[in-house]
């Protein structure tokens, strides 16, 4: 191999901390995952207990309002996980309540709402944030799912995000123009709520979304919660509908209403009263009380849905899902 005297100039570099980039280490971890079609059904409590560890970098798909893994997020609060680093892409309220609960102390920002509690956590040093955007974060995750250590992006440059990120501005190796690169991201754990899955984790998702598939393929541990369990025979009858293959999945949690209070399109509408309540709590610095009322007061989400929400209300939310076109196979 000829040694060349050529170089690419690094024109500028962000100074933000970032999850260590180690694509070969990620491959080693993937190498240890179970390849067998072993049933992976378990409760939310067991899945979070086994697959979310203190200190993990955590990502979740969609959000507390729209087809997100709301039950799994509440279970993290219930189990008092600590020192999590959150991938804050398009997450509305969840980062705020995970910070309030003491679970999250670092976050990469795309979009999340705060309220006074979150600002205070930042000012008091209890929460450290690095600055990206939604699409830059999903690009970082996609690069992780491609087995890479970095990827070029055509944004972020020139902003104040840049110095507070791990981006670099380099000479483009082919055009010579300045261009931005960001590190790939391989989260420790991904939480994803899906419409249908078999007991091994072959999963179907219907409708638009954020980066469900990339998050599954980029993460070391993958926990899926699903509205419905379907037979593997059903999966095999239409392989084009499978978004996530079983071999990426560590746990399958059968969790109807697992996106509550959010909407799960094709199944149920969001509970707008509850959504209003969590927004209000966030804006008035009352997230602690919100969490006590909806998480702390119950042993499980099943109990919360049964006693706190009630069957009549859940049936009403199901009735409000009236535009199911395209959300069912």
């Amino acid at each position, binding site marked *: 191999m000829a040694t060349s005297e050529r170089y690419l100039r690094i024109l500028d570099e962000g100074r933000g901390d970032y999850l260590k980039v180690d694509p070969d280490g990620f491959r080693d971890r993937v190498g240890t995952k179970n390849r067998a079609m072993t049933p992976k059904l378990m409760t939310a409590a067991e899945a979070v207990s086994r697959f979310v560890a203190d200190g993990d970098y955590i990502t979740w798909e969609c959000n507390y309002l729209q087809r997100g893994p709301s039950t799994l997020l509440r279970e993290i609060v219930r189990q008092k996980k600590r020192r999590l680093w959150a991938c804050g892409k398009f997450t509305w309220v969840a980062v705020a309540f995970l910070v309030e609960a003491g679970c999250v102390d670092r976050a990469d920002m795309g979009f999340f709402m705060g309220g006074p509690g979150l600002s205070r956590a930042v000012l008091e040093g209890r929460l450290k944030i690095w600055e990206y955007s939604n699409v830059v974060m999903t*690009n970082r995750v996609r690069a992780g799912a491609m087995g890479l250590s970095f990827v070029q992006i055509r944004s972020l*440059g020139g*902003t104040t995000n840049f110095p507070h990120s791990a981006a670099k501005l380099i000479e483009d190796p082919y055009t010579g123009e*300045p261009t931005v690169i960001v590190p790939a991201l391989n989260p420790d754990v991904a939480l994803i709520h899906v419409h249908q899955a078999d007991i091994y984790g072959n999963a179907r998702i219907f409708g*638009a979304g954020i980066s469900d598939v990339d998050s599954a393929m980029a993460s070391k541990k993958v926990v899926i919660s699903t509205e419905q369990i379907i037979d593997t025979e059903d999966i095999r009858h239409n392989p084009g509908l499978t978004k996530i293959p079983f071999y990426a999945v560590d746990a399958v949690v059968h969790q109807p209403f697992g996106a509550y209070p959010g909407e799960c399109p*094709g199944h149920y509408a969001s509970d707008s009263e509850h959504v209003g309540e969590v927004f209000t709590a966030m804006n008035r610095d009352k997230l602690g009380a919100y969490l006590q009322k909806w998480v702390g007061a119950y042993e499980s989400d099943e109990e919360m849905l049964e006693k706190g929400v009630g069957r009549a209300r859940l049936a009403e939310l199901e009735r409000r899902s009236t*535009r199911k*076109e395209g*959300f069912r196979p």
Partner: protein
Amino acid sequence: MTSKTGSLAPLLPADGPWKTAPKATSFAEREFQVSITTRLIEDQKNYWVAAGGGPMYSVLLARRLYAPNALYVTEDGIVGADPVLPLDPVMTVVAEKPSYRALQWTTMNGIGDHCAVGYMDVGILNALQIDPYGNINSTWVGEYPTKGRRVNGPGGADTIAAQCRRVILMTDHQKRKFVPAVDFISSPGFLDGSPGARERAGLPRGTGPWVVVTNWALFDFEEKTHRMRLRGIAPFVTVDRVLAEMSFEPLVADTLENLDVPTEQEVNIFRAEMDTGGQYSDARGGWVVREENRWKLAAA
């Protein structure tokens, strides 16, 4: 400071159907802002709109009235929907109603890629704080990161602002919103305004903010200096008042466009199908009424 602008092409078509349509008898300032943005939307162009608020209302209203084939996408990857209205203000993505009758459902990276290669002609964004070069802050108010308060972050706006060919910015007309320098550039405008500043930062060429629409006025950016320039004002405010409610002095075009007030049809559809609870209109700004043959801003 007046800019010698000579014969600038008008930003709003001089023959728009709103010119001759019956005017609303009264309206909210934010309804005025949505109407102006609506009229800037062109048929047969692709729009990437911030998921909610003025940007989405404007494109929905434009599709109902003036630009039925203006296609819009949202950052969850919904392409060309024909949504079920009204939308719950926070349920504007992923959910059933905003997804309805779309041409395609993809993902955030999917739509990000469509934008990166140039399929998204115009972005429409909200700005919490904006500077003379159209840089937007939606991250932090105060001295980052030690004093002040955290806000929501750029979301998808950084990508929209970086990559759409043109960007329409919507903001409330307030002194604290128009600042000489934003506390934090969350999404890029013309950066320091110097020629090629965006390209030197790695952003695609031929992009940048196009106009700023407020509840009182319409701005664009002067070609060479990239500084914000007043181009039009509402009939219920004066230039002095517009300028007084900004913390920097924009350029002012020689001739200002008179921005027509909302038509009856615009506010009727907006109220019936979009902002049905008045939640958006009531949140900020006041009410405009016709008194003694003049449009007057009632006390907010």
